[in-house]
């Protein structure tokens, strides 16, 4: 029995030891785990994109022998189609290359015999230009579905789109047709002999529902600086762009029926290489230009000095050049990615990030290329009659180190900028995800707060540890510790809704306080000297001086408040904020960096105070005793003996306070306007990394670029605070070792 009990005890003891050790190590595991888990979400931002050949199909000679005008594929890389000269869509199963169906385009215009050209409009719509110059428009639907047993079924359909239909006209080389929302359609023809014609077909409905059709057409009359080599039109039919063989870019306004207004002509390059292809990037703001030298650039109109209100096309992004002449440019229907190619390679580039995402080498020279409607499969038909389909995996094309930390020239901006604007109402918006304004905001908030908190906290800690009577110290320390427990949401709320309006009413009093409170202190010091020598109070006041200081501080702040009113009326014509704006041009936000300095400072004071006070108190008493015995005053002892000894501990207190200020979320969220701007002005708000996460993450779709970028900023915060905390802890351990033996 006794033996059993001892054995059992021993067994329990060993078991407990193992469990407790595991529990202790679990702390390390959880810290590492946090970092690993958040990094794992952020990391895919930097995964390289890939393109895998999903299928290669040798197209039957019967189809490829005729002239192929267009190709296409669908999202799952299971089906593809070819459009031949007769206007027939041939649908293939990509798995085995078998022909699934051939569908003749419906509603062939009268008199048309064969197709002359095809224009892909996006969203599965194609404009068909027939040999007699007539235009019809069709929508091609091709989808695949996978059954449970693995068989793949294709569904295909070709339907008429009624909004575009133009009758025959002669001499057309290339043609563009655009529907005008609810009002008809416009067609732009490039005619033989370098002529351009714009024809509007407007339909107006009156109240009774009867339609009235007006046809207007206008021919281009402006002289051209060379022969036309490429033409494109935006999706709304408002602007017409053309490039010439002498390297000029031209832009016309064609939004009004019956007029073609030349807006500008600009040389696209210094060496006047012929422009070979033009395409509008998603969103119709940027124009991608490819020339005979293989260069690929994007342009959009901005305000240029000397041009007044007019905007002029300017080269914004230069993407990776092709080796041969740029034969084609395709814009992705989903984002600002461009596919461009010369005779033997296809480059995939992202416009905003200027990243060369992929270089694809097709087996032979490519004659036709096409993207699927969602942009995730690329099909190419080469000269040997082989159709190749790639599965594109480009997870986050718009993110690169350049876009996260560098200046980027966004669409509609006049110059490259650091900007954070993650979402907008429309899909073709260019997300702006520069972390620079956020890092800047974090640093600004932290610095402001530390500037306010560090002197106050350290001086107060010095007083509490060295001069205060021990009995009072036992009461004051818990008070400060309770201060540390005040939830940041409370501080933030008061800062945002109580302090900010208060300071807004009398901003000057803040500056006045900085001057007047020390002045009051100086006055008190002189009075103190008088009182002290003359009174027996000396013994009582020693260790309680700060109590006398409380009314001094309150009085000082009150005086500052009164005086600021006087100063505002006499010096600043009654309104300091107005003066600030009109004279210095500084905008004043109600929730500004001063508020943040006070609120965030208030939050970190107790942390710095407690740790610094501990460090100062832990300096061995025999050091101070020796100093005092040698005749040094209590201040001299504190300043020359205690403070230098405790310096590592004090420094670690400041660092820990710094770490807290960096990561504080609620105060910054509530007491600043959350405007991501780069301005050192004390009168402006800011947005910090942490507040940004809190603001944006509820709206970030799972695994989107925004979601991952927010995780990345959490990683940054983690690493930053990790370095600071580890440094502080190392300092503290050193300090402990130094004095541990006492």
């Amino acid at each position, binding site marked *: 029995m006794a033996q059993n009990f001892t054995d059992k005890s021993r067994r*329990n*003891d060993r078991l407990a*030891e193992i469990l*407790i*050790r595991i*529990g*202790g*190590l*679990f*702390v*390390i595991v959880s*810290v590492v785990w*946090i970092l690993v*888990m*958040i990094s794992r979400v952020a990391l895919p931002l930097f995964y390289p994109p890939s393109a895998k050949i999903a299928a290669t199909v040798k197209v039957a000679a019967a189809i490829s022998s005729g002239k192929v005008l267009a190709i296409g594929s669908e999202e799952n890389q299971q089906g593809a189609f070819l459009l031949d000269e007769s206007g027939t869509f041939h649908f293939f199963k990509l798995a085995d290359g078998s022909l699934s169906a051939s569908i003749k385009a419906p509603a062939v215009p009268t008199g048309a015999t064969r197709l002359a050209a095809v224009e892909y409009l996006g969203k599965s719509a194609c404009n068909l230009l027939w040999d007699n110059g007539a235009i019809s428009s069709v929508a091609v639907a091709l989808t695949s579905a996978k059954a449970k047993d693995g068989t793949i079924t294709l569904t295909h359909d070709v339907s008429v789109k009624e909004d575009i239909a133009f009758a025959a006209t002669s001499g057309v080389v290339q043609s563009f047709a655009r529907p005008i929302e609810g009002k008809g359609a416009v067609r732009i023809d490039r005619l033989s002999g370098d002529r351009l014609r714009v024809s509007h077909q407007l339909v107006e409905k009156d109240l009774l529902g009867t339609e009235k059709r007006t046809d207007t057409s206008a021919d281009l009359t402006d002289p051209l600086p060379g022969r036309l080599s490429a033409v494109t039109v935006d999706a709304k039919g408002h602007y017409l762009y053309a490039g010439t063989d002498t390297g000029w870019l031209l832009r016309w306004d064609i939004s009004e029926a019956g007029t073609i207004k030349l807006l500008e002509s600009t040389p696209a390059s210094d060496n006047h290489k012929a422009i070979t292809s033009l395409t509008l990037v998603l969103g119709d703001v940027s124009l991608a230009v490819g020339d005979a030298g293989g260069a690929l650039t994007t342009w959009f109109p901005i305000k240029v000095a000397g041009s007044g209100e007019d905007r002029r096309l300017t080269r914004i992004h230069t993407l990776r050049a092709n080796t041969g002449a740029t034969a084609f440019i395709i814009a992705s229907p989903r984002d600002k990615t461009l596919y461009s190619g010369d005779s033997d390679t296809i480059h995939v580039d992202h416009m905003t990030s200027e990243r060369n995402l992929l270089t694809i080498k097709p087996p032979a020279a490519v004659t036709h290329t096409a993207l699927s409607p969602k942009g995730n499969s690329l099909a190419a038909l080469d000269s040997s009659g082989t159709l190749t389909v790639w599965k594109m995996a480009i997870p986050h094309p718009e993110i690169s180190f350049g876009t996260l930390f560098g200046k980027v020239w966004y669409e509609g901006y006049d110059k490259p900028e650091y900007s954070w604007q993650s979402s907008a109402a429309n899909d073709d918006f260019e997300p702006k995800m520069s972390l620079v304004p956020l890092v800047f905001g974090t640093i600004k908030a932290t610095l402001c707060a530390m500037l306010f908190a560090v002197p*106050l*906290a350290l*001086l107060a800690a010095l007083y509490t540890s060295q*001069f205060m009577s021990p009995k009072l110290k036992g009461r*004051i320390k*818990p008070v400060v510790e309770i*201060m540390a*427990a*005040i*939830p*940041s*949401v*409370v501080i933030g*709320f*008061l800062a945002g*809704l109580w302090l900010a309006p208060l300071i807004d009413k009398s901003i000057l009093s803040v500056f006045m306080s900085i001057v007047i409170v020390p002045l009051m202190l100086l006055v008190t*010091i002189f009075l*103190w*000297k008088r009182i002290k020598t003359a009174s027996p109070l000396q013994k009582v006041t020693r260790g309680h001086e700060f*109590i006398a*200081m*409380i009314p001094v501080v*309150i009085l000082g702040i009150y005086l500052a408040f009164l005086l600021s009113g006087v100063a505002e009326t006499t010096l600043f014509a009654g309104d300091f904020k107005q003066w600030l704006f009109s004279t210095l041009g500084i905008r004043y936000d109600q929730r500004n960096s001063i508020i943040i300095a006070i609120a965030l400072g208030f939050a970190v004071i107790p942390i710095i105070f407690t740790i610094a006070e501990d460090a100062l108190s832990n300096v061995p*008493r*025999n050091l101070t005793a020796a100093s005092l015995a040698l005749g040094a*005053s209590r*201040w001299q002892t504190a300043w020359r003996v205690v403070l230098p000894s405790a310096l590592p501990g004090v420094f670690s207190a400041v660092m*820990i306070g710094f770490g*807290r200020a960096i*990561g*504080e*979320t*609620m105060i910054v*969220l*509530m007491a600043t306007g959350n405007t991501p701007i780069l301005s050192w002005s004390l009168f402006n708000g800011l947005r910090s990394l942490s507040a940004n*996460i*809190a603001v944006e993450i509820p709206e970030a779709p799972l695994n989107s670029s925004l979601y991952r970028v927010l*995780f990345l900023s959490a990683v940054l*915060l*983690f690493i930053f*605070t*990790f370095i*600071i905390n*580890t440094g502080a802890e190392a300092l503290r*351990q050193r300090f402990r070792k130094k004095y541990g033996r006492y």
Partner: protein
Amino acid sequence: MKVFWKTGEPYVLATGAALAVILVMSLTLIGTVMTNGLGYFWPRALVQFELKDGSRVLGQITQQEKNPLSGERRLQLKVGNRDIFGQDFRWIDEKEITARSLPADAVLLERREHGNYFGMLKDVTAEGITLTAATPYEKLQQARKLVAGKIDATAKIKKQMSDLNYAAESIRLKLQKLEYDGKEQNATAIAELTAVREKKMAEFTTLNEQATATLAEIGKITARMTDAAGGSKEISLTEIIALQRPNSMSFLTKCGAYLERVRELLLDDPRESNTEGGLFPAIFGTVMMVLLMSVFSLPFGVIAAIYLREYARDGLLTRMVRIAVNNLAGVPSIVYGVFGLGFFVYGIGGSIDSLFFPERLPTPTFGTGGILWSSLTLALLTVPVVIVATEESLASIPKGIREGSLALGATKFQTLTKILLPMATPGIMTGLILSMARAAGEVAPLMIVGVVKLAPTLPFDANFPFFHMDRKFMHLGFHIYDVGFQSPNVEAAKPMVYVTTMLLLAIVVIASSTAIYLRNRMRSKYTTSTF
């Protein structure tokens, strides 16, 4: 004088002033919250002003200040009647005022919608009940008393309805599961359950009709009110929550009204998108979350502290554990929130959903923020607090006690459980309370992993399995942020925010004071002073 400066006495005063600034700031904070929070529930007089332009205004004075434009003194009045005037507040320059009075029969109506109504009660139209009282005010009170039973009955019906609704919903989920498992095999079960569900739904409809009918009946009793501007309005009895005549209330009745409001605050549900009514769900949610958090953080924290203090030898590993503890304490709370979202909510929660509730997808069950994930996230965040406090208390136990126990033949584990842990209990309690205070005040991570502005159901109720870990919850701290910064009518919501702030501050301050008191008592018990 020179000596005075040399010995550094002025600098001592300067350091004292720094401490004074800190204390003044803290007192200002507490004072602001207290004055704004405590005053809100006091029934304030309804003052009637006659203005120079002949119009009359009735309201409660909320602020006085100098007009920044004209320099004249002006008053801010809460005029109420948001549905009529459009705004709750109005500024009046003092020089515009020709007369002010305190009409004794001015009535304050707390309404279910559109905030308070200030005005005079003219008459009560009673249909179906006979009122014997003389004055309209008494009539209204009598009418309210008469229909109180009916209102209780409707409340009971509402309760039954929500139970039925819950039952129907759980049947729906069961059906969903059966259908997912195989529509053909479970055809009979599906049919049975569908029948039960339809029956419940039918019951629900009848009850709903009953409740609506009763309410319509009560709704026919209306109070005809006139406001200061002269407009009149019929307000149905169902709209009225409470009524008082603050101008003719004695001090004691005012105290009674005050206590009644405090009761409402602590025990009732919020109204008017959280800007009025009570805080009960938020208090309940906070407490539930904090308790659940302690269940996770306490054992982990205590074990880690025991490891550090009793089992670890001084070495690289121990140093690393210490660094890890410090980092757990120092990593920004929002990072925990992000981690909780990525790991708990989408990681573990998503896996649970696809394993156990695949039939409900894409509607997430555990794969969205909830009280369980919030507690786990906060547990990680507060573990260092428990570790530090426990370690400190273990360290303060004299070595002799350990050695004595081991010398008597006890194993290390026995020493730990029988001697050390009981002695360290106050320290562990300190850690626990401090961690609870920290968790109660933390908002940033919760915003990401499960707090909502309005939760339709509490995370704990009478329906099986009682604890609903997947539910979202309300939280006092988030309530402050949400009502103060995201409500459409911030000015009107401010008093409520101050009250919430006061409550949260009181909870946190009381909890931390207790913890610090416990700790200090324990410190003085074991440590012997040196030098």
